[in-house]
């Protein structure tokens, strides 16, 4: 195991997709924080489904990291309709200037549909499309189930996933052993999809002993109470 070099994503458009509850938002917020220390980074809250926990919640928590959070104008209000901020397109134009852009795409295949209107612009920017998975989510409790959701998201987003991120966790109760126990699952998902594992993320004190690269992240999920 080696540490994943986040700077390899600097200046790129990174589209983070996956089954809801797999930790896409937390991975996105952490990546944004790390990339924002290298150069200007846009974190785009592209979740039109989750009413309570969103990347937009992290606005104002980045300190010296140069992260601009872009979110729909109705986020965290009672307006229960999907909307996309016009600033999303502006942020994408920033990618032409070498800025990093992270899309946190919530809501499974339904949430990924609205990426369609950005398709031509996105594809021209050669995005890194990361599929975040957790083996401890009931609807992705097998690699086969996770693979099916990956294919659904690809079909609705019209984007091809380029790499996988193993974010298997059971919140604050996760142990390094828990993560290690998902190694076989991750390998099988790589085989099924023909895609590489970019990194395994972890929040535990001890780094998990797994094949491939690992990335220490922090829990940046909003505390409700």
């Amino acid at each position, binding site marked *: 195991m080696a540490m994943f070099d986040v700077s390899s994503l600097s200046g790129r458009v990174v589209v983070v997709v996956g089954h809801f509850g797999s930790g896409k938002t937390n991975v996105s917020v952490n990546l944004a924080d790390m990339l924002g220390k290298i150069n200007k980074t846009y974190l785009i809250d592209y979740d039109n489904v989750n009413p309570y926990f969103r990347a937009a919640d992290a606005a104002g928590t980045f300190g010296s990291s140069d992260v601009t959070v872009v979110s729909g104008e109705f986020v965290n209000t009672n307006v229960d309709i999907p909307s996309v901020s016009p600033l999303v397109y502006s942020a994408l134009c920033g990618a032409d200037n070498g800025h990093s852009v992270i899309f946190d795409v919530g809501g499974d295949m339904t949430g990924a549909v609205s990426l369609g209107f950005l398709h031509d612009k996105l594809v021209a920017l050669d995005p890194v499309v990361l599929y975040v998975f957790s083996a401890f989510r*009931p609807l992705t409790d097998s690699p086969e189930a996770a693979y099916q959701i990956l294919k659904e998201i690809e079909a609705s987003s019209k984007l091809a996933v380029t790499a996988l991120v193993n974010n298997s966790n059971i919140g604050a109760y996760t142990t390094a052993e828990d993560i290690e126990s998902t190694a076989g699952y991750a390998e099988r998902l790589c085989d099924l999809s023909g895609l590489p594992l970019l990194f395994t993320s972890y929040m535990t004190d001890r780094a998990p002993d797994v094949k491939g690269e690992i990335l220490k992240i922090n829990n940046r999920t909003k505390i409700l109470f």
Partner: protein
Amino acid sequence: MAKVLIKGNEAVAEAAIRSGCKYYFGYPITPQTEIAEYMAKKMPKVGGLCLQAESEVAAINMVYGASASGVRVMTSSSSPGISLKSEGVSYIVGCDLPCVILNVQRGGPGLGGIQPSQSDYYQATKALGHGDMQLFVLAPSSVQEMAQLTADAFGVADKYRMPVLILADGALGQMMEPVDFDALHFTPEPEKPWAVNGHAGKRKKNIITSLFLKPEELESNILEREKKYKTVRENEVRFENYMCDDADIVIVSFGITARISKAAVNEARKKGIKAGLLRPITLSPFPTDELYRLSGSASAFLSVELNMGQMVNDVKLAVQCRKPVHFYGRTGGSLMSSEDVLEQIIKISGGLL
């Protein structure tokens, strides 16, 4: 699936399926839509049915029909959708049918908002439908409990042939916690000789109806049901008593608010204030006797709720004016913090200690 990280909404759906619930009828509404989503994916795999009805009214009447045929069935919604279901719930009560209903509360009245709330307490415990009727109302306060109380709800519903309402809120529905499904205990489904599922010429026909042609028949039917409610009140009251027995100030709080209140109790104890938490797990039947008992030893009560003061009146009835009963709440989708509750405790104790 030993231990998983799961949303409260998903935990209810999984626990229902494991309880032998084969039929789910619902209509989407934030913040409980994950239940329908989960049911739609899982029900076909277990030979069950998940159907998105054309409205909440249709969904509850599908529950009515399915329950009459003797199967375990549930529906779920959030506050405005529950209001729509109320006519059907009354019919189900009138027919003495078991079913499970989940309310993942959001702010009201009217369309209100999509953030968490406990402002449907009155509706759940006093009047989710017309007529002399009561529901059995359970209030989970963790995701693990969302799962366990769902399993319990099917058992109670079948045992007493009455609808069980699980009163949750948006926070419990949306937040994720680890759940150990192998640790759940389930009540096996009993025989249902009353069900209308075809007599095949072998028995007398069963009739399920809430219509009684003679007033005396309706009255005796209601009196019979009242006996059942009495048994429920005697046998099924559930609560958590957290450090109440030596407490000067007893906080009464349910669901997500009880979590916040428990943290405040711990902080108060560190400051030398003897606080405790009485958490009703059944809101109906209400832990009246336990509160009355505590009114002998405690100096004051504080009801903490996400509404403008609803359960506080049940606390007052239980305490019977023996001690002062205070109220603290937030509403409209805002949560209080444990510091807010602690401030109330200190304010009350200022007049006592």
